[in-house]
């Protein structure tokens, strides 16, 4: 496999020779190992990394082996240098990654069957990619509070992996800095505003970027959890009645319809 010499905007062609998993490839100057690997189609697992946000280095899943390096550099934070020899997979790396994913499952309350994000969850993906089919570690069964005070969104801290994507996107992109981490170690948790209920944080712009970047079901739209979804057959009567002119204004029009009894 050889990297297609994709020109960057501006026309610069990759020029830095790097060995990636035994294959010679050309990298752009200043390119990270992760960007290079993605460009040439070599998968490296990530969780906290997100293009467009600052580098965090918290999940440690993208640790790779670099010849001559004593430690395991992070692919997301390490820029290539000429003649760098990178290994993105090895039995040792596979073990480390499996254990890190397993630790995340042991730490939180990740019950896929009851989660809004099942099927669209990066933690779930990392588990299946890395062969995590059971957890040997002691489950900690956290009972951290759910914050459903926001009219549009919901925060379930038991599903949070503390990747801080929401913290970074809100601070760096939206400029609102609603989110931050409080406490430390296994007490660390996500807080809104000055540790207020999310719905009371006046700096929140309701933009939803935090929900969009959450890799798990910790941040979600209200009403998307399995128990909250329901069919709405009454909608048809509403439409036909409205067309016939017999429609009765339902509670001001803009109110959410969830609160109302729906005709069976």
């Amino acid at each position: 496999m050889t990297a297609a010499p994709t020109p960057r905007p501006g026309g610069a062609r990759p020029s830095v020779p790097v060995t990636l998993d035994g294959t010679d490839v050309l990298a752009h100057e200043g390119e990270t190992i992760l960007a290079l690997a993605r460009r040439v189609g070599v998968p490296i697992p990530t969780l906290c990394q997100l293009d467009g946000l600052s580098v965090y280095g918290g999940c440690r899943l993208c640790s790779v082996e670099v010849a001559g390096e004593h430690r395991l550099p992070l692919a997301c934070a390490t820029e290539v240098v000429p003649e760098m020899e990178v290994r993105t997979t090895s039995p040792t790396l596979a073990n480390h990654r499996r254990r890190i994913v397993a630790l995340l499952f042991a730490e939180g309350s990740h019950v896929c069957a009851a989660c809004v994000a099942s099927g669209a969850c990066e933690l779930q993906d990392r588990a299946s990619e890395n062969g995590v089919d059971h957890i040997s570690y002691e489950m900690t069964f956290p009972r951290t509070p759910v914050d459903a005070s926001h009219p549009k969104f919901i925060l379930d801290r038991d599903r949070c992996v503390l990747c801080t994507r929401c913290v970074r996107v809100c601070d760096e992109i939206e400029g609102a800095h609603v989110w931050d981490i409080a406490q430390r170690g296994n007490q660390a948790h996500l807080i809104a505003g000055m540790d207020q209920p999310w719905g009371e944080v006046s700096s929140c712009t309701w933009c939803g970027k935090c929900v969009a970047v959450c890799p798990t079901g910790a941040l979600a739209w209200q009403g998307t959890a399995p128990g909250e979804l329901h069919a709405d057959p009454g909608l048809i009567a509403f439409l036909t009645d409205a067309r016939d002119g017999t429609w009765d204004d339902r509670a001001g029009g803009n109110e959410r319809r969830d609160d109302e009894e729906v005709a069976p």
Partner: protein
Amino acid sequence: MGAQIDLDAVRDGELGARSRRTHRALVCSSTGCLSAGAAGVRAALKADVEAAEQSETIQIVPTGCRGICSRGPLVQVEPRGEDPTLYQHVDTDGAHAIARDHLLGEGVTADVEVVAPNLPFLEGQVKVVLANAGRIDPERLEDSVAAGGYRALHTAITSMTPEQVLDQIDRSGLRGRGGAGYPTGRKWKLLAEAPGTDKVVVANGDEGDPGAFMDRTIMESDPHRVLEGLAIAGYATGAERGFLFLRAEYPLAIERLERAIRAAKRGRLLGKGIFGTDVTFNLEVRVGAGAFVCGEETALLASIEGRRGTPTLRPPYPTERGLWGQPTMINNVETLANIPPIINRGPEWFRSLGTEESPGTKVFALAGSLTTTGLIEVPMGISLRTIVEDMGEGVPGGRSFKAAQTGGPSGGCIPERFLDTPVDYEHLRALGSMMGSGGLVVIDDSVSMPEFARFYMEFCRDESCGKCVPCRVGTVELHALLDRICQGTGRQRDLRHLESLCRTVQATSLCGLGQSAPNPVVSTLEHFRSEYEALLTDVPAATTRGGS
């Protein structure tokens, strides 16, 4: 700001005043002795001397730490022209007896125990960093100057170029005393060569290992020496700003450092135009909220900036992008305390102490099962056996030595058969331990090693910042596994999980805290594996499974 003080005049004045006294009584007023009642002892001595109207001839001096903390409160009486006497376990009754018999009477009182001058604990020591500890009043600039304080800063600023200072430190072979042993001269050069005009130097006094109090003692006993070392670092590297970072749990050290800074600024030893030159160095104390992780360089800088104390990825290293983006260098307090004597006495003198690779001395906090505990300063390369058996006078109570833990929660245990190992950076690392900042805890045969490892893991679990997954969750799970084993419900597979998870936490954690958190487990497993196995409920399977 006051007038520039003249070091010689201050020293002469101080020594002149001292020569008019018949007696000086030095009362240890460091945290250890204060908590044992030294304040009452000092008040009693003072009251008796005042009642006898001898305040002019007898001076009661509060000093820093003498190191034999297990025998405090300590009072040293120094009659003019006679040998000093060091009293131990002094209470207020004892203070009255000392005042009555020794200060106002004929001689040494029989009512208070005396520390033998040839005590092995004291005899084996070489005091460089702690030269003034216990001998000067840390709250008086004049006392410090009389003992040679700020002479090195004067020499450096008035008769040396920054390059010459750098060269002296480089040639001394001094290595960072915070634990890793990075050559100090090289670190200074990195900052000196870094581009930028607003460079910063930082003293790291955020000491948090259980049982360690080296930095606290240095800051409490001789704060001006730390200021002087940092100011010299600033001059040599071109930094005009400095910060002293320490934890809120060290209120006495904070108070004395701030007092020292005020006094030094008044005397134009800090601030603008030091010693009449155009050299500027401003210094501030910054207090952390007591997180172990803030001893890590990048977390420390975050805390100084007022942000959450969590480590960030390196590179960029602080000398490239540190405080508020400026090139920054961080030195341990003990490292900085070594600077003035190196400038005063030269790098060759410094190299005559310690070993070729690790010159100089090291301060250790001796704790645990030893007859005499406290603070010692010894030349590098001394054997652990000398420290434990001679200076600490062995394990008391008919118990026997089992292991010594160096490097605190980041270090490892050293069993009896390695006691003759010389104490320096390389030898301790080769044993799977580390020098660390200087904590040395001795364990006797009544201690269960799995429980000992669990204690340190609990510490690391509680001190993890929570940023990276292997440290935040790994320490929780390692602690749970150790707990299960200690409670006698562990199985072979728990031991396997323990070992494999140790490897992952070591290899993948972001900063030194997580990378070294498994060390106590790994080293106790290496030297005392049978203790773990004896606690398991099942026997090993016939075939053993491999794994990385």
